């Protein structure tokens, strides 16, 4: 019967106390785990998907909406800009690379993005089979889309399959053909169908719907010179250009420039407040579990005072009693935090489903795999156990045996 098995016996003796204290620690740790996983998953995801884009130019409106809709493909676009604006910006000396994108259709929930081959280079995409699109209505499919190479399909109007406004609205006048599939990149590209921008423009030139915000549409005379695009993804020549280009672009009448870095900083500040609130909540749950541990171990010690005296009489040192009770605390903390970490991962995974608009930005499978921070959380849980056991352990070590024996 060593210290460890004595501690185990001590815990087994009051199973209900043990289970409740363990659960209390688990809850605190689970909350900390899930808040951490989701917030880092989100900010990592936002960074990873940024793809080195310095500036996005698009229709005037909310800059954040512009960024979310054209880089992260989570929101609907604001509107369209003229093709001539693209030409102007592309020829600007401050621009290193300008990539046009046109969006407005989807197939089975995957957005169809009309663009140039440069778009694929943003994500260092590699082909799994097939190759790059060569003519309009060729499709290069992201790794997580449902289409196969060689498959032909008609695009659906709108941005997602649950876009009720466009349900059943199909561009069956022209079929797309998949000419290549990409290897997974871990970015939003995996969920996209890429095609030359001319394809989307052509489909929408024949479109006779009323103008709706965020949709491509052609003017009534179908004049090719008035072709529209949704946005321009810009890589700037140098740091100064990143500062100066937006100023120049924002001076034009129809086009605004948004800096993804700046908008995301603003976004994560807003999200950060929520995260801080949740973290504070998790910390208070952990604090509460600590108090519960104090009470549980203290009451269990009161019941076991005579046991402690017996151990002393049989030759155990005060240090031995101290380490026995501390071991109980550490065991509670360790088991509690392990359960909490596992539960926290599952919680984060389920919560990420609710965060639908950020789907594809957070890598959901990452939420279930072990994160280095789990070790920190484990240490926090064990620390809570140590702290919770400390008062009882000190009092056990100080047990006045003579007094206990006299009383008996």
């Amino acid at each position, binding site marked *: 019967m060593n210290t460890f098995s004595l501690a185990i*016996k001590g815990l087994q003796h009051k199973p209900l106390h043990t289970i409740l204290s363990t659960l209390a620690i688990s809850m605190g740790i689970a909350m900390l785990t899930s808040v951490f996983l989701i917030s880092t998953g989100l900010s990592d995801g936002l960074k990873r998907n940024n793809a080195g884009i310095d500036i996005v130019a698009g229709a005037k409106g909310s800059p954040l909406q512009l960024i979310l809709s054209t880089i992260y493909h989570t929101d609907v676009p604001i509107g369209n800009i003229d093709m001539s604006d693209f030409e102007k910006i592309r020829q600007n000396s401050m621009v290193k690379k300008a990539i046009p994108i046109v969006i407005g259709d989807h197939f089975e929930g995957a957005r169809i993005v009309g663009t140039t081959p440069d778009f694929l280079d943003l994500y260092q995409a590699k082909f799994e089979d097939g190759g790059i699109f060569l003519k309009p209505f060729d499709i290069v499919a992201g790794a997580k889309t449902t289409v196969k190479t060689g498959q032909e399909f008609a695009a659906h109007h709108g941005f997602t399959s649950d876009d009720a406004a466009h349900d059943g609205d199909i561009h069956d006048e022209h079929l797309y053909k998949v000419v290549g599939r990409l290897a997974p990149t871990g970015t939003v590209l995996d969920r996209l169908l890429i095609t030359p921008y001319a394809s989307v423009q052509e489909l929408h030139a024949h479109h006779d719907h009323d103008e709706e915000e965020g949709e491509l549409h052609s003017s009534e005379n179908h004049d090719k010179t008035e072709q529209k695009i949704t946005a321009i993804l810009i890589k700037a020549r140098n740091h100064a250009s990143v500062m100066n280009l937006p100023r120049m672009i924002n001076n034009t009448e129809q086009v605004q420039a948004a800096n993804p870095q700046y908008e995301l900083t603003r976004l994560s500040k807003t999200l950060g407040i929520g995260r801080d609130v949740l973290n504070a909540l998790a910390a208070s749950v952990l604090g509460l579990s600590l108090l519960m541990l104090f009470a549980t171990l203290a009451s269990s010690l009161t019941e076991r005072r005579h046991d402690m005296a*017996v*151990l*002393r*009489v*049989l*030759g155990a040192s005060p240090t031995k009693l101290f380490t026995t009770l501390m071991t109980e605390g550490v065991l509670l903390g360790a088991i509690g935090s392990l359960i909490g970490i596992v539960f926290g991962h599952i919680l984060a995974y389920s919560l990420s489903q609710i965060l639908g608009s950020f789907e594809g930005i957070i890598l959901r499978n990452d939420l279930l795999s072990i994160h280095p921070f789990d070790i920190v959380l484990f240490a926090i849980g064990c620390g809570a156990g140590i702290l919770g056991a400390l008062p009882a352990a000190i009092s056990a070590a100080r047990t006045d*045996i003579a007094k206990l024996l*006299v009383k*008996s």
Partner: protein
Amino acid sequence: MTILRTDSVTVQHSKTSTILNFPDITIHPEDRILLLGPSGSGKTTFLSVIAGLLAPGSGKVFVKDKDLYALTAKERDHLRGATFGFVFQTLHLLPSLTIAQNILLARDMSGIPSRPDRLENLLLSLGLNGLADRKPDALSQGQQQRAALARAIFNSPSIIIADEPTSSLDDQNTDIVMDLLDQQARESQSALLVATHDHRIKQRFQNIIDLTSLSLKGVA
């Protein structure tokens, strides 16, 4: 050879501030000593002092010629585990451990190695065979008492100390327990020190230290 010797031990009572002056005692191997006195006369206090659990106000305790309170706390704990076997009035078997685990605490807490068949032999000689894996509350009162005795003598202690072993027992069981203590002390060649207010067992001892008339001195 003496196992234990006390020299002018006094203890100040914590509440009444009176000073208890204990008589000097000397214990040799296989001595049978009765410490007699009514409740509150300081019997358990004296036992605590000679076992190294309570430092005396003045005076000295020598165990195997070592000045007990000149040792470090750790050495004292170890010496206690090796020298004394305690039987308490209330039995103090740990309820969360089996009978075997309870008895083996004597080995595990003192760190003194034992022969592998020690436990089995003890259980057999005390009529506890077959009960090793039971919890204490599954045993009768008498069986629990014997298990506690087994734990006390597990390390073949030099002195078995029994504090009020019979006060809650009827005459018949008093005889059984005292016979058992006597027999086990003889088998492990231990001295036996019994503290009690129970006059029924007086005739079993030649060496009686009566604390009834312990001189109580008021304190300045």
